[in-house]
């Protein structure tokens, strides 16, 4: 469990985007939802629209043509948001390192918070990645709240 995170405050919804992966990472992600790993019991849920998501999960090197779409989908995810890359090929191209048809690893297209290496990574590793991300998201959210509270307190101070 992430540092400073004793219990999760709310569920985290994940949108899965395939930007050119070989499918292996993708099926491992689907296995996460099924009874053996069952991440839904922790409140991790795959959602069908980026507009509902807290987390954007990307697999695969960004194939040309998908870069524009990845950017658009990233913009559709409401803030606070975070991005996780699953798999080596999305992290640094992996086996596809000299391809003529990629626009670069995911972090050259959209900002990335957590990388899960492995080709493909084990389901346990993906869960760990999502938990790390979760901690980050919550601290972001708390940060936003605290600043809001401080702002509110500051304003009161002025009023007094």
């Amino acid at each position: 469990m992430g540092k400073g995170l004793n219990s999760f405050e709310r569920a985290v919804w994940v949108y899965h985007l395939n930007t050119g992966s070989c499918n292996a990472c993708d099926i491992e992600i689907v296995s996460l939802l099924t009874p053996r790993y069952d991440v839904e019991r922790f409140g991790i849920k795959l959602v069908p629209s980026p507009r509902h998501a807290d987390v954007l999960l990307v697999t695969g090197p960004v194939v040309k043509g998908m870069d524009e779409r990845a950017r658009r989908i990233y913009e559709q995810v409401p803030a606070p948001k975070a991005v996780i890359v699953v798999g080596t090929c999305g992290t640094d191209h992996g086996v596809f390192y000299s391809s003529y048809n990629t626009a670069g690893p995911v972090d050259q297209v959209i900002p990335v918070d957590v990388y899960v290496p492995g080709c493909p990574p084990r389901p346990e590793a993906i869960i760990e990645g999502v938990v790390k991300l979760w901690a980050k998201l919550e601290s972001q959210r708390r940060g936003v709240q605290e600043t809001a509270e401080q702002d509110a307190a500051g304003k009161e101070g002025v009023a007094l």
Partner: protein
Amino acid sequence: MAEYSYSYKIPVGPVHPGLKEPIHLSFEIEGEEVVNLDIKTGWVHRGIEYLGLQRNPIQVIYLAERICGICSVCHAFCFARAVESAAGIEVPLRAEYIRTIIAELERIHSHILWAGVAAHLMGFDSLFYYTWRVREEVMDVLEYLTGNRVNYGILAIGGVRRDITTDGAAKIRENLESYLGLFNRLVEAFVEDPSVRARTRDIGVLTREEAIETCAVGPTARASGVATDVRQDQPYCAYADLEVKAITPEAITGETRGDVFDKAVVRLFEIAQSIEIIEKCLEGLPEGKISAEDKLPRLLNQLKKASGEGISSIEAPRGEDYHYVRLEEGEANVTAWKVRAPTYANIPSWFPMMKGAQIADIPLIVASIDPCISCTDRVTVVDRKKGTTTVLTEEDLRRLCVEKTRRMLR
């Protein structure tokens, strides 16, 4: 005045949230009926064949595995066979048997995966979870045998990298036992369940003639009554000793309709067939070496000296997979490589299947060929008459599909 057409277009994709790769499909719809279909692919084009030309055959094996993560051993298997035939490398018999066993285990995992996806699309989620739970068992065995759950990395030019020990064989047998028990329950759930039958019977029909005309392969062709199977027609590896027969629905249900139901039946009974094949392979597993040459530098040297062309075709879970390789003397890298994956051959069969289908059946029909591209994300319905645009998501499409199931159950 411009002529009015009462049809409208539904573009689907290329990005979709679910299980597989992006593809763009554009449906022309009249009312609820699909009248035409257009397909655009290339959203996952990574230039793999070109990449292969910059690497030597041993390195390409790992690249070939990553053409597709679901039928990953098939491409490595097919590539290795093509290289072996180009370089004239003789594979030890034991390795041939081990390759067969791994390929069949993969078929089991792939067909169960498909069954789960189909159940999910029908709105039968408990069956989806059930099948994927069952699938984990074969994944465990594959992991035990190869060290990996997916992209096994077990193939080598001239053989395999890991042997099947007595422990391994026992593990496989245990798994097969448990599958034999579960198989009847899967058949009950798919073949005998009235809701599945209602949802798949006479939907996405591909007649025998259409299957031949569109050059469909694998379970898609077999479900239409075309008894083709590379394992039967041009037996390779251990299949020559096993006498595999292509499974057609005729033999199981007594009739062939070429619909989604038949495709499910064929895939399910192929699981049983694979179990049988693996059992026979384990029984007849010959003793001996597992690779023709295990010193990699020496193998590389041999490949560098080799010159020639090799082709190979194998029966992947989705149909015939085909590789062409050319090696030239003095050249360490592969000089030509062509891959024809089964889904490429199966995509044209969507056209006859889609014509006249309802929007709610689209996901099921798309999935029925078990494409390496399956669900659909953003669907925009453009009503040309009104000039309005509505956006349907993959979830909406699935909802339509599920609602239709519910309606039929009432």
